[in-house]
Structure formats: structure tokens, C-alpha cells
């Protein structure tokens, strides 16, 4: 396996796990083109391509592991569960925000025996620390700002806070968020103005605003009614398309707008 570099800098070309393993039967060589950046040596980001054997059942994450383990141990990215649960490996794959652990190679192969190229970039709108690793703090700051926890006043109940099935269903969709940031970093408004709370924060506010056990809806609606709140959304649906959990993100945002328009004012 060879790594072709377009960088002026000298990259280590050995992986973190030694020699390459045997290529499995049925694997196809694909080009993995990665947007790389090491702030300590690179003046600016550049593209680097690797040849990697891929099975149709591989996820993009497997290819990144291959690069890191056998070709270039300096490649930096986040991942934890590798099963679409922890939300740590959001990245821009072939131009769209996806979790690397949820994109199957069989869906990316170019037809007709053409060479397959998979481009991988860091998610957009957050500062890049290194390679595919971005600073998530601005994202989590917006999350914290909408008070994403149960707010209840008065005496604690002596038993569970009960809720009907219908009341639970009201906000079921937005409980599924894994805070991966695929949505917020696909939002053109967030790209240009980082103070916009962004779809993920609104999804998590929605999860409590429409929870019958919660009493903090007015506080959160006030926050989302201000200049960086829901009125900034231009209804472009990028966030809904990006969400790996299939959450109807734009719909949740519209429901918050509707609550502001018709429940109050």
C-alpha cells in the first residue's frame, strides 16, 4: 500500500499497528482522500490520498482505521462506540455530514469498475484542532444555553413523575439526539453566524419544552425567541437530511416557532 502525499510537510508514513494485514477476499482498492491539517507544521489544510482495500460491508470508519493503523499513525479523528450511538465521529463524507461508523462502503462504490474515491473532511463551522478533529465546545455551549435538563418547581413528588403515553410521544423524536453535531454543522446559518444556537440545541430544547413533566418551557422559549434563536432558521432542511438518528429536526424547530406564535404573544 502506498500513500501519496501532496503536502509540503514530511508526514510519517507508518501506521500505529505495524505492517499491513493480508487483503481480504472480495476487497476493492479505493482512494480515501482526506482533508488534513496539523496546526504545528502545516500553514493550511491540504488533501492527502490513500489507497485502501474495502469490502462492501466495511464502514467508512474501517477505512479510516486502516489508514491510521497501517499507513499513517498521525491521522487524527474521534470515534468511540463505532455503532452510531456515541455521536463522536461526525464528519463530512463525500460532501455530506455523516457518522463514519454508519456509512457502508457498498453504498459508495462507483459503478462500472470505475475507481472509487471517498472524500473525508472535518465538519464545517467549528474550529479544526487537527485533521478531522474539531473543537466541539462552541457546539456544547449552545446546547447548555438552552437548559437541556428537567426544570421543576415546588415539592418533589413522593413517587415517579408519571406521564401518559400520549404525553411521552409528544417529544419522542427529539429524545433520540446523540449530540453528534451533524445537523448544526450542516446549517448554512450556523456556518456564517456561530452565535446561532443551531438545530441540535433547538432539538434538545424541544425535548424539554414539550415534556409535560417539565416546568421550564417559558424560560427556554424566551431564549429561543431572541436574536440567536429559532427565527434565524431559514427552513433549508440541511439539518434534517444530516441527522443520523433520523430526527425530523426542521419540524422540531417549526414546532418551537409555532409554540412561540400561538401559545404566547
Amino acid at each position, binding site marked *: 500500500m502506498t500513500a501519496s502525499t501532496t503536502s509540503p510537510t514530511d508526514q510519517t508514513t507508518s501506521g500505529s499497528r505495524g505492517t499491513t494485514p493480508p487483503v481480504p477476499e472480495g476487497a476493492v482498492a479505493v482512494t480515501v482522500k482526506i482533508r488534513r491539517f496539523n496546526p504545528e507544521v502545516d500553514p493550511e489544510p491540504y488533501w492527502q490520498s490513500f489507497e485502501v482495500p474495502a469490502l462492501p460491508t466495511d464502514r467508512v470508519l474501517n477505512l479510516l482505521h486502516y489508514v491510521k493503523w497501517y499507513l499513517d499513525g498521525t491521522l487524527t479523528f474521534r470515534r468511540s462506540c463505532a455503532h452510531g450511538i456515541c455521536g463522536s465521529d461526525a464528519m463530512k463524507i463525500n460532501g455530506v455530514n455523516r457518522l463514519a461508523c454508519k456509512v457502508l462502503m457498498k453504498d459508495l462504490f462507483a459503478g462500472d469498475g470505475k475507481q472509487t474515491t471517498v472524500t473525508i473532511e472535518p465538519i464545517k463551522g467549528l474550529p479544526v484542532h487537527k485533521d478531522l478533529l474539531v473543537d466541539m465546545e462552541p457546539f456544547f455551549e449552545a446546547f447548555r444555553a438552552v437548559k437541556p435538563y428537567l426544570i421543576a418547581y415546588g415539592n418533589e413528588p413522593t413517587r415517579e413523575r408519571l406521564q401518559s403515553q400520549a404525553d411521552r410521544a409528544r417529544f419522542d423524536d427529539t429524545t433520540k439526539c446523540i449530540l453528534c453535531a451533524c445537523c448544526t454543522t450542516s446549517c448554512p446559518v450556523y456556518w456564517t*453566524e456561530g452565535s446561532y444556537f443551531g438545530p441540535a440545541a433547538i432539538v434538545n430544547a424541544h425535548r424539554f419544552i414539550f415534556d409535560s413533566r417539565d416546568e421550564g418551557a417559558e424560560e427556554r422559549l424566551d431564549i429561543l*425567541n431572541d436574536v440567536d*434563536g429559532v427565527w434565524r432558521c431559514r427552513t433549508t432542511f440541511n439539518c434534517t437530511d444530516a441527522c443520523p438518528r433520523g430526527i425530523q429536526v426542521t419540524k422540531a424547530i417549526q414546532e418551537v416557532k409555532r409554540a412561540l406564535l400561538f401559545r404566547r404573544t
Partner: protein
Amino acid sequence: MALTTEQPLTIDKPRSSGRPAARRSNFELYSWLFMRLSGLLLVVLVLGHLLIMNILDDGVHRINFGFVAGRWASPFWQLWDLAMLWLAEIHGTNGLRTVINDYARKDATRFWLKMLLYTSMVLILAVGTFVIFTFDPNIGD
């Protein structure tokens, strides 16, 4: 372990966000609503205007001083044009306000671009309204 940091040993509370408190104002809500309502009215006003000025009869070829004078003799068309002027101007200004909010990087840039925008809006509204109400068909006499 030796402490090498010169920064005070404080850390933000886990729930802090560093944003100013919400302003409890419905301005953004009304501005959003206004874009939709004025947009609806503009469909009728602007398309009607384009139809009359560019398509009916001879279209643009019949437009001259007399044609405009004839239309503005009627309070109906005066009101039509007045509504179109105000709605389109405020709609466009509010739209550009959104765009400036999105794209301006510095607070000072944002502030001055908006001042420029609001000044131009006031001037255009004033001059336009003035013309509609004080138009004199016998100006050349």
C-alpha cells in the same frame, strides 16, 4: 504534581453558557411574521404591478409621463403604489438586516452596515411617499 499554570484555578460551572440573558422581546418573532405576511401581499401587489406596466395593452411601450399621471390621478393606484413602496422597502430592509446579522463578522461592521441600511430605507420611503402624494400632472405648464 507541581502547579505550572499562571491562570487562576477556577472553572466554569458545568451548566454555564456565557451568553447574555434572553431579552424577553418579541421583535424577532414579529419580524419573521412580517416577512411572511408582507410577502403574501407583495405577490399580489408586485405581480399586479408588473402585469399592468409590462404586459397589458402595449406593455412598456405605452408608458410615458401621461400614463403615469393618469394612473396617479386615481386614489386607488396611489394607495396601491404606496402599499407596494412601504411593504417592499421594509420587507427588503428587514431581509437585508437578516443577511447582515448572518455575515457581518465584527459588531462595529454590523452596526454601521445596519445604520447605512436604515438611513437608505428612511430616505427612499420619504422621497417615494412625497412623490406619490405631491405628484403634479401639470408640472410642465
